[in-house]
């Protein structure tokens, strides 16, 4: 999530911002739009020509951020960068929340309306990385992972970035080459490099800056927001949807060594490992009344390694995530893979959840979310 007192709210206290979002009995919303240059400097405020819209984020999408905006001014479509923002006030505290930088697409223009309102889709500022490289690309041995990423960002015109330098000393032990193909994008290369030093995939923040940080398991992170249903602090819509979809979950796994091409044909106990969940949980053979098989090809050094690797897949498949889909009072602090606590008696004891998707209308309408239960 955005820090409550991150700029442009640095003059407010965290308590005041939280109270405005969570506690104020009556809140007024307004929205605005800034035009930025490629260095994320504000070129113009086009709020007078801004017809509102929404901002959305899907943490599992290739490009996380998208925006849907109405603009009654002709911009340099296809390259103009805009940053929507929302302001909230309860009459005492007024806070502004930047909501990311987006590259504008070519808009739909409604003819017959004066002035013409352009319906514009905005794409995450990381869009410039999401293009095919178009040639083989290599990073030499001895080059720092983070230095290699920084070079790519700068070359692609992304000059606003914040890099956690804790892995600055990590260098490639051998050259890494990405072949020429249609699927290799700059984003793939950046995330491959980050993955090698245990960093999470690159993401862009509320101001439009690229963020590169070390990966930390969601459960190990400090909760960033506490949602409950108490009379004075409830922000959850009264209608909530809970889904735990295990319909296609397997209960029989056949793991096969896929990297022993020149050896003897795999057999059970030597190259093939089969596991059947007969009785555990609601995905078991007994509970479902039938066998649902899944073949898992794995690269493994020997049969013991095959069994160990298969167990990871089996554990993941048996741990079907519970998804919560619902709306809340607008909380513009939400951002990327937010770690939350949900205290909702309808769902049992207070639970740790991970926000994976949200859509925030800029007109004060409720914000929609998709959360995954962590435990």
């Amino acid at each position, binding site marked *: 999530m955005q820090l409550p007192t991150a700029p442009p709210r640095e003059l407010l206290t965290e308590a005041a911002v939280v109270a405005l979002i969570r506690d104020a009995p009556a*809140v*007024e*919303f307004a929205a605005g739009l800034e035009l930025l240059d490629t260095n994320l400097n504000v070129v113009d405020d086009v709020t007078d020509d801004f017809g509102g819209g929404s901002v959305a984020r899907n943490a599992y999408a290739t490009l996380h951020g998208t925006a849907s905006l109405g603009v009654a001014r002709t911009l340099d479509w296809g390259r103009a960068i805009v940053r929507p923002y929302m302001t909230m006030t309860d009459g005492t505290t007024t806070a502004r929340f930047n909501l990311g930088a987006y590259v504008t697409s070519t808009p739909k223009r409604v003819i017959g309306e004066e002035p013409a309102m352009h319906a514009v889709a905005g794409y995450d500022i990381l869009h410039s990385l999401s293009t095919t490289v178009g040639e083989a690309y290599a990073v030499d041995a001895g080059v720092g992972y983070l230095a290699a990423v920084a070079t790519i960002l700068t070359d692609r015109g992304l000059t606003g970035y914040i890099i956690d330098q804790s892995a600055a000393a990590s260098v490639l032990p051998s050259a890494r080459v990405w072949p020429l193909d249609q699927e290799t994008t700059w984003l793939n290369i950046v995330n491959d490099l980050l993955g090698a030093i245990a960093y999470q995939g690159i993401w862009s923040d509320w101001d439009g800056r690229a963020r590169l940080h070390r990966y930390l398991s969601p459960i190990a992170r400090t909760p960033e927001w506490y949602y*409950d249903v108490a009379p004075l*602090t409830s922000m*959850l819509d009264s209608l909530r949807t809970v889904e735990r979809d295990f319909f296609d979950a397997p209960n029989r796994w056949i793991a096969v060594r896929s990297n022993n091409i020149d050896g003897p044909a795999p057999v059970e106990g030597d190259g093939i490992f089969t596991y059947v969940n007969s009785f555990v949980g609601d995905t078991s053979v007994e509970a479902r009344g039938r066998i649902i098989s899944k073949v898992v090809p794995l690269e493994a050094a020997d049969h013991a390694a095959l069994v160990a690797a298969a167990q990871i897949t089996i554990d993941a498949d048996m741990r079907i995530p519970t998804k919560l889909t619902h709306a809340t009072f607008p909380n513009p602090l939400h951002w990327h893979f937010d770690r939350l606590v949900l205290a909702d008696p309808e769902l049992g004891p207070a639970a740790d959840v991970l926000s994976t998707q949200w859509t925030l209308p800029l007109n*004060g309408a409720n914000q929609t979310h998709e959360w995954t239960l962590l435990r």
Partner: protein
Amino acid sequence: MAVLALSKLWVNRMDNGQAVSAQSAGRGRNHDQAGEVRTYAGGRQRAVTIAGERGQFTFRLLDVTLATVELLRTWIGADVQVRDHRGQRFFGVFFGVNIVEYKDPSFYDVAIVLRTVTVAEGV
């Protein structure tokens, strides 16, 4: 400071200053803002308001000629300024004119609902 006392209601186009004036009746205005009170889990009632007060000034121009009626028709959707004898001034747009025939065949009453707009006034 000069004080302008108006004896009639005046409507001026903002782009060219063209004016219409007439005695008026049925004047009134109202202001509102988009908003609602929502129900959240646990029964909490919370108010949400969208910034931007909406204003409306309603008036009827009395005994205007057919030429004025036709002129006002061409002003539909144009920025106008409306001033009355009370010293009130509104900037806005009207999207229709409601024309009522007067007993004298040369004159009409014209009812207008002005939707106010935000403008930057020069100083």
